[in-house]
Every structure is written in C-alpha cells, then in structure tokens.
C-alpha cells in the first residue's frame, strides 16, 4: 500500500488535510503531514525541503510515496527533497499535480483500496476538474417537454 506525504506552507493546514484524508482511509494508509519553517522567533509559513525529505523517509514504503503539496515553493521544496533521495527511492515517489484537499481525500481512499502509485496519483489529479458547485437546475436541454 502506498503512503502519502502532505506538504503545506502551514503545519496546521498539513495536519488538517491529513485529518480529513485519514478518515477516508480509515487509518489504513500512512499519511505524513509536513509544513512551516522554524527559527528562533517561532514557526513561520513556509516549507523546508529537509523536513519534506524527513517526512518522505518517515512515510517510506517500497510501494511508493505520493507527495501532495499546496502551492509554489511547496512544490519546489518537494522537488529539492527528492534530489537528496537515492535514485531507487526517488523513482518510487511522485509529486502530484492534484489540488491539496480534494486530492488528498481521493488519494487516501484509493490508496486504502490498494491502488498503485500511478493509479492513485491519476485519481488524485482527476479532482482538478471536479465540479464543486452543482448546477442549480437540471440541464434544460435534458428536460424539454
């Protein structure tokens, strides 16, 4: 079963996404949240590639690790983290193009059902075209008298 790493600028957001995704996976999938950067003044919004690397290693399974990230530098950080992995591990990681929340929910359930790394990623990325707000009325073309 593949594992999932959630990368966000905000540690809280990453943990929140893990919480909802975890429910879909009934706790069967390893989901590791990572986010924020720390200095002497506290935790700030941002992503630390070395922390992402650690999260990937914590989540590691030979079935593969799917990495879902929020935006911009979170993606760069994930890519940088992969550079530090041995090539054989890097080959079993994917950085998903999926929207973070929807992607994590779908990925968690698909992973819990035993989907492969690429199948789970494809399902997660499919949420990018999801219609979220239903049309208020049925399509009139479908219900002409």
């Amino acid at each position, binding site marked *: 079963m593949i594992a999932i790493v959630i990368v966000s600028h905000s540690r809280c957001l990453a943990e929140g996404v893990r919480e909802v995704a975890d429910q*879909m996976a009934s706790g069967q999938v390893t989901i590791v949240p990572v986010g924020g950067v720390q200095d002497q003044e506290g935790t700030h919004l941002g992503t630390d590639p070395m922390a992402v690397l650690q999260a990937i290693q914590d989540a590691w399974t030979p079935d593969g690790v799917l990495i879902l990230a929020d935006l911009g530098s979170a993606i760069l950080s994930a890519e940088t983290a992969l550079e530090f992995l041995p090539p054989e591990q890097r080959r079993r990681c994917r950085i998903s193009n999926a929207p973070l929340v929807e992607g994590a929910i779908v990925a968690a359930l*698909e992973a819990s059902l035993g*989907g492969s790394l690429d199948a789970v990623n494809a*399902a997660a990325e499919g*949420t990018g075209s999801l219609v979220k707000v239903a049309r208020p009325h*049925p399509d009139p073309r*479908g219900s002409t008298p």
Partner: protein
Amino acid sequence: MSRPRPPHPQPGPEGPASCSRTVTVQEPMGLHLRTGKAIVQTANRFQARIAIRNLDQDVGPVDAKSILQIMQLQARQGHRLELVAQGPDARPALEALAQIFAQPGEPAPPS
C-alpha cells in the same frame, strides 16, 4: 497492483447478469464523502462492474468503484440515482449498495 477499471455498464438491454435499481439520496446534505467512501468500499468488494447515474442532474454514468467519479455525481437530497451492475455477482452488489442508501447517515460497514 492496480484495480481494473472496466467500461461502465450502460442502462438498457444487457446480458443475463445485468441488473439495475434506483435509489433516492436521503441525506439532508446530499451524498457526502462518508457515504461516497462506503459506496466505493462496498462496490470494490464485488467483481461486477457497477455504474451510477444521477437521474435528476443527468450526470453519469460514473464508476461506483471510483471516489473521484462518485464525487462528480452532484447528488443532493431527493435526487434519484440509478445503479446498474453487470457481472456474476451483480445482484448481491446492488443489494449491498442499496443498503447504504436505505440507512441515511449510517453507511454500511465496509466488510
């Protein structure tokens, strides 16, 4: 291992092992994620190909074994969903899925 994703069975004249059933979404908030999860988990226990169509939104058919596709149904309270199953265990599959809709907010356990 990747689960096979066969083409959706279409409603209408089918082989001998095809059957269909229409259910109504009773949840006040529509078909939410927990129910979607129950549908996908239940559907994946069966060999049959199972498709769902939202008759009131003219959406579908979608694959009942894919949460992504279930999320696309836009199913709200009162919407009628047509379930079409095809395969050796089509009948028990529909039976199990109908159970989920019979108990709003109380999805069937996954095993």
